[in-house]
């Protein structure tokens, strides 16, 4: 069972929900923080670190002795990462998507691929919770390969929780793809509603079952609730604003460690999402999976 926690808008409480869910469930859980640009879950889970590996993408390296300057590599590359105007090619590694088009195109066999580091995957543990996150190198534009590397660590616990990056574009897709359920965390404000609509469009495009969590549910207005009702989107739980939770968060303490009675709330959330996953009407056939 893989549950991704996502949101269009940033700062709505994705990490709070993911971490507190992990700390509240009785079953063994693994938590994968896929917000590799700004990973935060470890600040609240405080895992004991176990191992690190670097993640690389393959980029071309040209053997000048074999290169005939034919230009085939440059015309095959869609990303302008290798440029050859009938000259020895120039490589721009930071533009390279690692697709291998240049290697396949080179008639002289002059291109081989070498790894370029884009970040690290770090693994740790907190009690029964297995923890993995990615940390993108600062200045690196492409987060997709690192997110996919974090995702590939899943599968050692019956429950996998994924803390996704904010937004609705390719990094989020890389994080939530293949999940059994997506929890969309929002807040009851105009920004929250606007970004929830976009996130709902995204998960519908991916064909994934989903439900909504309204965080800080007593600020703002009623528009998010009305939207959920009119779109038949399951509203799973509302979490009211609580100064004690906000202050604990500011110090790096998970909500359930300062207010243990909240564990029941997060367990309830999990039970409700399971009931959505198990009801056939809410299970579209995933378009993106064979």
């Amino acid at each position, binding site marked *: 069972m893989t549950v991704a926690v996502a949101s269009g*808008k940033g700062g709505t409480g994705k990490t709070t929900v993911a971490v507190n869910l992990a700390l509240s469930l009785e079953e063994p859980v693994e938590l994968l923080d896929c917000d590799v*640009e700004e990973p*935060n879950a470890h600040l609240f889970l405080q895992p004991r670190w176990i191992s690190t590996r670097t993640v690389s993408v393959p980029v071309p390296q040209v053997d000048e002795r074999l290169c005939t300057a034919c230009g085939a590599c440059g015309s095959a590359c869609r990303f302008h990462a290798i440029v050859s105007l009938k000259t020895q090619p120039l490589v721009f590694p930071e533009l390279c998507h690692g697709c291998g*088009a240049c290697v396949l195109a080179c008639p002289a066999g002059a291109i081989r691929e070498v790894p370029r580091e884009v970040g690290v995957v770090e693994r740790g543990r907190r009690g029964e919770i297995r923890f993995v996150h990615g940390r993108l190198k600062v200045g690196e534009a492409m987060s997709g390969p690192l997110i996919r590397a974090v995702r590939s660590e899943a599968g050692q616990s019956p429950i996998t929780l994924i803390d996704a990056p904010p937004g609705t574009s390719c990094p989020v897709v890389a994080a939530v793809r293949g999940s059994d359920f997506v929890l969309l965390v929002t807040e009851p404000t*105009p920004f929250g509603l*606007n970004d929830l609509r976009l996130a709902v469009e*995204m998960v519908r495009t991916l064909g994934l079952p989903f439900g909504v969590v309204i965080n800080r549910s007593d600020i703002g207005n009623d528009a998010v609730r009305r939207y959920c009702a009119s779109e038949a989107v399951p509203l799973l739980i509302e979490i009211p604003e609580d100064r004690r939770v906000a202050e604990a968060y500011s110090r790096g303490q998970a909500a359930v460690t300062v207010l243990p009675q909240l564990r029941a709330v997060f367990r309830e959330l999990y039970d409700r999402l399971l009931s959505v996953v198990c009801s056939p009407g809410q299970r579209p056939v995933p378009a993106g999976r064979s």
Partner: protein
Amino acid sequence: MRELVVISGKGGTGKTSILASFAVLAGQAVLADCDVDAADLHLVLTPTVRRREVFRSGNEAVIRPELCRGCGKCAELCRFAAVLRDFEDPRGDGSSRYRVDATACEGCGVCVRHCPHGAIEFPERVCGEWFVSGTRCGPLVHARLHPAAENSGKLVAAVRQEARRLAESEGFDRVLVDGPPGIGCPVISSVTGASAVLAVSEPTVSGEHDLSRVLELCRHFDIPAAVCVNKWDLNPQMTRRIEGKAAAGGAGVLGRIPYDRAVTAAQLEARAVVELGGPAAAAIRAVWERFKETGE
């Protein structure tokens, strides 16, 4: 012409509320919403759309079922697991054996070039649209990336380019940019070449952690950066720590904005915080007075 960008690293620290207030305080400026996959500035500035452009970027592979012979070369060569095998020959005529998942396709064209049957088309990809609108604070360039789409960095570049062009052609001396969260592709595209960046933080461990990475990004690209802490009174000790670290890293510390329910109230009324008044509005005004000179 100066281009001032507001970013945050961590999402939800108050970028858009602050930028909307800056737009009001600046009087007249060109505004650009570069948070293209979750744009919110239009909710405060209630723009009237004057021009609408389709944003095309890159290509996507599409397998023509009537030409596909099911050899599997495309699936073998694709490094993005974007080619999916359908059910084994359901109609018994060899059709539709493979298809491309558009949300996974990177647009590299490897399958297109290497399909032995020429069965894969490679149309240009429509990734979203962008708009030029009128607002009470000046022209706004904003955009909408299609859900689950790629190339957000290129759409950001298109929005910024149009905003600069407008500023030059219509005689504005400032462009104010609302940036996306994070430190990746769309953020890099929002800040490179800007006159100055304001990073909005919050006094939490995650605010601190994310600010340090976003300031490192600004140093990496050599862009003058300044910092303000929003909702600073939530944890005054953490606010001091964040300000100390930011100053030690060479960033200007421009002020503190208190927690104020007027910020949410303003959002509900589609107004900027400074149009409503209150302690947060006064603090944002003070930050603006300093930020508008940063990087000069």
